[in-house]
């Protein structure tokens, strides 16, 4: 096989298509709660009913009712339109111009903000001056990777809200603190967060790597992993289960007003690390678990998930 046979050239309109898809992903993520999150919330309601916790049950009913209203009236689930984050997996066989792809995603965010319209949240970190477009220097956040033996573009989009994002933590533990140190740090983070990240939450944990990698893995775990998925590493999967149990035993509950549904999931992503490092990062996602996904082929045909 010659190189020209193994690579496919995308449709000439692919970048316009990407722009429209990015716009629609942003709006969809704000309006439609993913199925796994709905199932997690319903499961929480059943648990609280069994426990006879009326306040927690009432809160979960309001959340589910709110999701229904957003479905019916095509309104935003939450007023926080977040900071746009894209995770893009590009098939290695597709001859795509990455710079143009990134520009298309940025333009999609600008269009969603102007056309829907959406509240813009992006400000300069020092002057606090608004850009008004939900885009700016370094925003949208775009996490890009290449997938072997594929000619597809898989895109996940999350408009990450600030209530939960402000509950982000990193600690470079000593290796001698071991697994116990990891568990202790995670529980402390959950305690410190309390009611603020809008529980019931999805807890993302990044283990290992360097400090920036740990934080990035925690975001992947909280935002792009589905509820109910388990790590393929049996030791990591066991820690996910144990921490979910312990976090729910704290009794913080929905909205921090008490109950057993503090977290719907604990997801851990990991990387190997240095012999003298033990990095742990925590990133939290609120009950909304906002996320939208699409797969594009080289002709620009979109399959919405």
């Amino acid at each position, binding site marked *: 096989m010659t190189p020209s046979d193994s690579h496919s050239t995308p449709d000439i309109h692919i970048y316009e298509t990407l722009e429209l898809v990015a716009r629609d992903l942003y709006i969809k993520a704000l309006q439609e709660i993913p199925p796994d999150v709905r199932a997690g919330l319903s499961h929480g309601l059943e648990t609280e009913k069994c426990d006879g916790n*009326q*306040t927690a049950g*009432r*809160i979960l009913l*309001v*959340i589910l*009712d*709110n*999701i229904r*209203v*957003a479905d019916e*009236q095509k*309104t*935003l*689930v*939450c*007023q*926080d339109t977040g900071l746009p984050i894209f995770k893009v997996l590009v098939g290695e066989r597709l001859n795509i111009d990455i710079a143009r792809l990134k520009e298309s995603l940025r333009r999609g965010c600008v269009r969603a903000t102007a056309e829907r*319209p*959406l*509240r813009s949240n992006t400000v300069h970190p020092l002057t606090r001056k608004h850009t008004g477009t939900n885009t700016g220097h370094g925003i949208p956040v775009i996490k890009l990777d290449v997938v072997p033996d594929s000619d597809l573009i898989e895109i996940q989009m999350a408009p990450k*809200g600030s*209530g939960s994002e402000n509950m982000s933590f990193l600690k470079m533990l000593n290796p001698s603190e071991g697994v*116990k140190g990891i*568990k*202790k740090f995670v*529980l*402390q983070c959950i*305690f410190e967060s*309390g*009611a*603020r990240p*809008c529980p019931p939450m999805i807890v993302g944990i990044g283990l290992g790597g360097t400090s920036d990698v740990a934080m990035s893995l925690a975001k992947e775990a909280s935002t792009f992993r589905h509820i109910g998925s388990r790590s393929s590493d049996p030791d990591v999967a066991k820690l996910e289960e144990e921490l979910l149990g*312990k976090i729910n*035993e*704290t*009794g*913080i*509950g929905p*909205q*921090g*007003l*008490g109950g057993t549904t503090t977290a719907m999931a604990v997801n851990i992503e990991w990387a190997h690390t240095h012999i003298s490092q033990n990095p742990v990062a925590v990133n939290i996602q*609120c*009950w*909304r678990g906002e996320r939208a996904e699409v797969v594009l082929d080289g002709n620009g045909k979109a399959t919405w998930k």
Partner: protein
Amino acid sequence: MAEHTLAPPLSEVDVRKLTLEDSVLINGTVFGIRDATQIRIFDEGIQPPVDLSGSVCLHTAPGVRKLPNGKYEKLSVGTTTSTRMDRFVPGLLERYRVRALVGKGGLSQTSVDAMQKFGGVYLAIVGGAAALETMQIEEIEDVWWEDLMPECLWKFRVKNFGPLVVAIDSLGHSLYRNVQELAAERIRQFGFG
């Protein structure tokens, strides 16, 4: 756990009847305030242009669209984290006789003490449930300090606004504090204290 339907302005007697975990619905006027609104009132010492006595105030900065007639149309109204505006609570209660604050995330012990002393309550709304909240707001009736957009002083007319949970009452109780104490104890029992 009792259920109440309240129509502001509220008296001290009205709010002193409420106890932790009671469920509350509100009909009538709710004022919207946020960080910038309260910085103007308390740090810049500017009197609010409307009487807030007996009022219910919501921690919000609504998403709105201005109409040609100068009025505002609601787009998405949700609630922001109250913790950031904790330091203004005693002043709102003592000086302006605000009776109820609606927010998410809770308030500090200083605010719990102020609620007890001056007769006020903190009503927890479900954070993030903006679709429902927006539907329960019938109209944006008035707005002051538009230069602070969107953190102006807003006057909303609401119908069956809630259900809200009494999370801090006027008797010195806080559901947040109770939950935190329990959580701290459980974490100690895990051996992570």
